[in-house]
């Protein structure tokens, strides 16, 4: 599973992209965040305030309880501020 980070989430994690293989217990976006947050102190810092985190599964905006089963690309980022 390919994980992408954008904006300050990327800066806090210290990487734009990483490939991970979460265990079968990781079924939802929320569980994926819990699992990623344990990977390093930087990950923990990036995911510290969950209210500020938005996510997309395979390039589609997704809610915290969405299933990540079969997802190829999951992205985490702050609320968008374009336009």
């Amino acid at each position, binding site marked *: 599973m390919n994980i*992408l980070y*954008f*904006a*300050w989430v*990327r800066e806090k994690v210290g990487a734009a992209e990483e490939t991970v293989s979460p265990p079968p217990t990781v079924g939802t976006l929320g569980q994926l965040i819990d699992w990623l947050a344990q990977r390093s102190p930087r990950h923990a810092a990036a995911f510290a305030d969950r209210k500020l985190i938005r996510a*997309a599964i395979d*390039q589609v*905006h997704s809610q915290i309880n969405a299933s990540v089963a079969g997802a190829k690309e999951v*992205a985490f*980022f*702050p*609320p*968008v*501020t*374009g*336009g």
Partner: protein
Amino acid sequence: MTVEIDIRVQREAFEPGAELTRFSLQNSSSGAVCTFTGQMRDFRGPDRATGEPITAMELDHYPGMAERQLAELAADAKSRWPLDDLCIIHRFGKLIPTEPIVFVATASAHRGDAFAAAEFLMDWLKTKAPFWKKETTAKSAEWVSEAAADVERAQRWAR
């Protein structure tokens, strides 16, 4: 009328006037053409008088998803209003103050539809398109926070 919707996510600067010239010629039999241009602000804070000058901006984006999301917004707009055509241009990368960031244009037989669709595109783009602004001032470089006003405006179009 065009079949393909003109959506561009680009690093290069663009010139809104040149885009309007092209768009209105391309849709010369549409009675109504509306455009919106978002230009980079040169201050941060509530207003220019009390705000801090911005010297530069970096626009992060999610390549692939950005184009996809804008295409979805465009299709949504076309399903809500009888539009002859529309165009969306959004920049990413480094910008300097006063440069255009975003441009939308809509063409329709009636002005109400052209106005509503352009405003809808901007409101939804502001809360759905994966772009993130980082503003640099003399003191710091900071990621822009989500504006509550933008969230509220976008909710007007929920259905």
